[in-house]
C-alpha cells in the first residue's frame, strides 16, 4: 500500500521524523546503556498505599495478567503475590492483614495460628 507524496509532504514528514526519531532513540539508547535498572520506588509506594484485611476465600493464577498469583478475601478484595513460594503458603480460611504505609503482609494460619510475614521488598533482585 503506497501513494505519491508531494515535495512539501515529504519535507514535512522528514521534519517530523527528525524531531521524533532522534530524541526518542537517544532516550531509549541512554536508558538501555546507562540506566537499565527497574525503578521499584513506584511499586513500593503503590503497595504502601494499599490496606486490606480479611479471610482468604480463594486464590488463583491470573493468566491474563502475567500469570500473577492472586488472593481473594471475604470482602472481595484481591491482591497479588510476588512469587509461587508466597502463593503456596496461603490457604482458604487463613487471615490476612496489611496496614497502610507498610510493605509487609501478615498471614495468620487457620490451623496453627502461626503468623507469617511477607515483605514486598523481596521482589527486587539484589546483586
Amino acid at each position, binding site marked *: 500500500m503506497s501513494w505519491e507524496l508531494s515535495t512539501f509532504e515529504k519535507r514535512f514528514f522528514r521534519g517530523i521524523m527528525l524531531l521524533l526519531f532522534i530524541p526518542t532513540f537517544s532516550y531509549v539508547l541512554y536508558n538501555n546503556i546507562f540506566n537499565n535498572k527497574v525503578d521499584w520506588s513506584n511499586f513500593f509506594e503503590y503497595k504502601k498505599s494499599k490496606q486490606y484485611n480479611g479471610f482468604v476465600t480463594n486464590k488463583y493464577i491470573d493468566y491474563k495478567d502475567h500469570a500473577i498469583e492472586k488472593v481473594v478475601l471475604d470482602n472481595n478484595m484481591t491482591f497479588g503475590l510476588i512469587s509461587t513460594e508466597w502463593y503456596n503458603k496461603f490457604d482458604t480460611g487463613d487471615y490476612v492483614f496489611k496496614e497502610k504505609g507498610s510493605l509487609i503482609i501478615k498471614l495468620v494460619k487457620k490451623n496453627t495460628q502461626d503468623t507469617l510475614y511477607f515483605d514486598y521488598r*523481596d521482589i527486587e533482585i539484589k546483586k
Partner: protein
Amino acid sequence: MERGGGGNSKPVSKGGGFIGVSYNFALAGGWKFNTGIVWDDEGGLAFYYGSGVTIGLAASIGLEGGDIKPTTQSGFTVDNFGGTSAGYDFSMGLAGYSNGGSIDTGKFRAVERMNMSNFGDTKKGYKTNSGSLSKGGWFKGRFGAGANWNQTYTGVLRIK
C-alpha cells in the same frame, strides 16, 4: 519474625526469548499486531498473539525476535508473557530495534507508561530487547525510518 517467603538473595538467571511476525503502524496514533513463539529457560514453549495501540510515526511488517530478561527474583516463564506490556519500536531501512517490558496499567497513567524505568515494574515482570527485519510501506519506505511507543495486550497459549 517468621518470614513466609524467601528473601531476595536467590540468584536469578531464568529468562527466555521470542520470535514471530509483527505489523506496526503509527501516523501520530496507530496500532500494532504480532504473533509468534515464546520460550523460557525451563523448557516452556507457547504461542503468543498481541495487539495494541501505538503513538509515533512508523509503518512496517516483518519478522521480530529477541530476548526476555526477568526483573524479579521469581524469574520468567512463558505464562508471564501474557498481559499488558509497553515498549519503543525503531526502524531504519530494513532493520528494526525494540525495547520494552511488562507494565502495570492499574498503577501507571499513560505518560508514566512511557517511562522506561517503569518497564518490568510488575510482579512477574520482564524486559525485552529485540530486533526485526521488516518491509516498510506507506511513508516508511520513502523516508526510511520510523519511531513509535506502543502498549499491547498479549495472550499466550502454552504448548509445553
